[in-house]
C-alpha cells in the first residue's frame, strides 16, 4: 500500500508511532519518518494510525497506481 504524510500538517503527536511503530518512527522529539510503501499486512495498523492522527496528516492511496509504470 502507498502512503504519504503531509509533514507540513504533522505536529509530532506520535499517535501513528504508537499504533504502527514498524511504519512510523520519530527521529528525535518530533521529526517523523515513515515507510511510504508498507506491506499490505500492515494495512489495518496504518488505517488505524491514519484515523488516530489528530491533524489527519496521513494520506492513504484510494486506488492502486500501477498506470504509468508500463510505458517505458
Amino acid at each position, binding site marked *: 500500500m502507498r502512503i504519504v504524510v503531509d*509533514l*507540513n500538517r504533522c505536529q*509530532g503527536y506520535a499517535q501513528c508511532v504508537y499504533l504502527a511503530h514498524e511504519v512510523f518512527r520519530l527521529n*528525535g*522529539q518530533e521529526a517523523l519518518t*515513515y515507510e511510504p510503501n508498507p506491506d499490505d499486512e500492515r494495512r489495518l495498523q496504518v488505517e488505524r494510525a491514519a484515523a488516530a492522527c489528530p491533524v489527519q496528516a496521513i494520506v492513504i*492511496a484510494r486506488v492502486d*497506481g500501477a*498506470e504509468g*509504470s508500463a510505458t517505458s
Partner: protein
Amino acid sequence: MTLRATVAELVREFRASGRIVIVGASLAGLRAAETLREEGFTGSLTIIGDEPYEPYDRPPLSKQVLKGWVPADHTKLPRMREVDADWRLGVAATGLDRATKRVRLADGEQVPYDRLLIATGTRARQWPNPTEAALQGVHTIRSRDDAEQLQKALAEPPSRVVVIGAGFIGSEVASVCRELGIPVTVVERGSAPLVGALGGVIGEIAAQIQRDHGVDLRCGLGVSSLEGDSGGHVRRAHLSDGTTVDADVVVASLGSIRNVEWLEGSGLAAGFWGVGCDAGGRAFDINGVVTDSIYVAGDVARAPHVLYEYQFLAMEHWDNAVLGAEVAAHNMVNLEPHYRPHLLLPGFWSGQFGVNIKSVGVPPFGDEIVFTQGSVEERRFAAAYGHRGRIVAAVTFDHGKWLEYYGKLIEQSGPFPPPPPGWDQPPDMKPMPAEFPDPRVPTAVPDVVLTGHAPSERTAEFRPRRH
C-alpha cells in the same frame, strides 16, 4: 444563442472532449491530473515526464532512503483517484510551439494540446567542473536514482564524506552520515548552515547542532577542486583556504536549477527563477501578458504574492506543489468568476540531527528576528521574523505545534514583535537583526526566492509613445 450561452457551451465541450497536456510527472503533475478528473474533465489527458518512473515523493530520499531504511522505489506517491491518462514517461519535453499548440518531445513526437500545464520543476545543480563531477563517488541528490546510488555508497561505508553546501539537503545528508557513524565534513560558502533560508542568527544555532553531532563544519569556505585517483574515483577535496580533506564520497548540494530550457523561444516569461504566472497559475508571456491556455505549478512557477508586497515568489515546497497544482487544474477547466487564487502561506519542514525544523511565511523577507518561545539552549524554540513592524515569517525547532499560531498572525499582517503567545516565553524577547546574506553574495541557494524584474535582460517589449 446569446454570447453567454455560447461561452458556457464551449466550456462544456472543452471539459467533455478537450485535450490537456501536463509536462512534468512529479508531485504537482500528478495532483493536477487528479484534480482535473475530480473537476469533471473527461477529455484526453497526456502526462509527460523525463524520468522513467511514475510520480514519486522526494522528501524521503534525503532521509529514510539515504539511511537505508526505505528502498528508493518505495516512494511512489499514493493515488487519490484514477487519472486515466496517456503517460509518456522517460521522454523529456524539448520545445513548445504556442502558435500550433504543440509540445515537442525528445523522441521527435509532437503532442497537441488545447490547454497545457507546465510542472517541470527543478533539477540538482551539478558540480561545475564536468571532469571532476564525473569522478566516481561524486553525487548530487534530487532524483530517485541519485538517492539509490548515494545510499549504496554510504552503505559501503566510506571513510569520510564531504558535503558541499549546507542548505537543507546538504544538512540532511550530513545528519544521515552522522546517524550511520560516517565521518563527514561540510563545506559552506556562507557564514553558517541554512543561512540563505533562515538567516545568520538561526544559522549559528544550526552550526552548533552540527558540531555537537560531530560534523566537521567549515563555513566561509568553498571547494576549489576535487581530486581523483588513477582509477577515476574521488579521493580528496581542495578547499579555498588551501587545506585539503580526504574523502571517498562527495555530495554536491548546491541548490537547484529550474527546468525552463525547453521553453526557449516559446515567448513565455521563463528564466532563471522559473516561469512567471499570475496567482491563478496562468503563465505570463515575455511582455507580462497573461496567457489563456498555459498554466504553471510547483517548483518552476513564480507568482506575485499579496502578503509579500506582490513580489514574485518561487517556492520549492511540497505544499506549493500540491496546492498550486490543484488551483491551476481547477482554473484550467473553469472560467471567470470561478477562478481560484493560489495564495499559499509558504511553509516547509526539515528533519536533521534529531531536530524538527519547520517554518511558515517567507523568512528572507524579514530583516529582524525575535525568539518568542522555548529555549535556544535546549534547541526547542519558536522565533518570528519581522519587516517594517509586521510579522512576515516564523521558524520552529521542535516546536511545530505553535506554527499555526504564527501563521494566523502572518496572514493578518500582525505586528512585530508579535504579541506574546502566553506560554513558555523566554526571559528576553528582544528583536535583533536576522542576518540574511546580501542576495548578491553566492551562498547556499535558498529554496524560496524573492525575484524582481531584471531590466538588463531586455526581454520585455516597451510600447513607444505615439503622441
